[in-house]
C-alpha cells in the first residue's frame, strides 16, 4: 500500500522553457505537419506569438525535471508497474515557444480499488507564466498495478 500520508505532498516547483526545437521534435513524433506548428511565420499568421505548444506538450515539464521519477521513489512505486489512468488539462491562455513557465504540483489524492489490486495517485499541477498567471491546469491520475507483488 502507498502511504496515504503523502496526500497533500507539494512537489518541487519546476522551471520549463518552451523551446522551438523541442516543439518541432514533438510535432515530428506525433505526425503533426501543419505549418503553424513548425514554422514561426505561419504561427504568427495564425495569431500566435510564436510556435504554439500543442495541447498535451506541457506534460514534458515534470518529466524533464525528473519530478515523476523522484515521486515514484518517494512513494515506493516501481516505474515498470505504472499506467496512466486519466489526464486532463484546462487552458486559460495559449503557451508558445519562448515562454518561461513554472509548474507547481501536489499530490491531491491516493486511493485503491479492486481490494488493493490497483492503487491510484492523483497529481494536480498549476502551470504559470513568467508573471505568475496560471495558463494551464493539469491533472494526472497514475495507476500502480498489483502493488502487493514483489517489484518488477
Amino acid at each position, binding site marked *: 500500500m502507498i502511504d496515504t500520508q503523502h496526500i497533500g505532498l507539494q512537489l518541487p516547483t519546476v522551471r520549463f522553457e518552451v523551446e522551438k526545437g523541442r516543439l518541432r521534435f514533438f510535432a515530428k*513524433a*506525433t505526425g503533426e505537419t501543419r505549418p503553424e506548428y513548425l514554422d514561426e511565420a505561419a504561427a504568427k499568421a495564425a495569431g500566435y506569438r510564436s510556435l504554439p505548444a500543442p495541447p498535451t506538450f506541457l506534460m*514534458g515539464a515534470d518529466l524533464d525535471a525528473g519530478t515523476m521519477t523522484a515521486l515514484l521513489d518517494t512513494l515506493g512505486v516501481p516505474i515498470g508497474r505504472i499506467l496512466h489512468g486519466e489526464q486532463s488539462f484546462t487552458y486559460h491562455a495559449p503557451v508558445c515557444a519562448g515562454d518561461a513557465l513554472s509548474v507547481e504540483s501536489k499530490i491531491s489524492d491516493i486511493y485503491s480499488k479492486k481490494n488493493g489490486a490497483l492503487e491510484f495517485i492523483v497529481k494536480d499541477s498549476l502551470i504559470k507564466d513568467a508573471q505568475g498567471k496560471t495558463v494551464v491546469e493539469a491533472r494526472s491520475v497514475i495507476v500502480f498495478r498489483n502493488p502487493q507483488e514483489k517489484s518488477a
Partner: protein
Amino acid sequence: MSAPCRDLVKVDQELPPLQLPRISRTTLALFAGSSGDHNPIHIDIDFAKAAGMPDVFAHGMLSMAYLGRFLTRWAPQMQLRQFAVRFAAITPVCAKLTCTGKVAEIIQRNGEVLARLDIGVVDDKGEVKLAGEALVALA
C-alpha cells in the same frame, strides 16, 4: 482557420475522424524523446518483459497527442478550453488507431458558447483505448 460558428455546430454532429499510421517502435522512441517520458516500458522490450508485459506498448500520452491533433483540426487550438481523457486499455506497438468524436451538447460558460465534444481513440478492432471530452469555444 477560424473557429467553428455556433450557428453551424449541431448536437450529434460528428467530427472528421483522424486515422493514424500503424504505431511503430520508431514512433515510440521519437515520442519518448520529444515528450520527456523515458519510461523504458515503452521503448525497451527486455524491460517490458521483465515487468510482465508481452512487449513494449505505446505511451497513453501519444494517443492523447493524436487526439489533440484531431481536435485542433476541427477548431484552432486557441479555442480549446478543456481536454480530459481516461485511458481505457493498453495500446500495443503496431496498433492502428483512429480518433473520433461528436458534439455532445452546446453550453454557455464564462460568457462563451462552448461545444462539449465526446472524443475517443479506437483501434482497428474497435477497442476503445481512450475516451474523454473536450470543451471548444465557438465563434
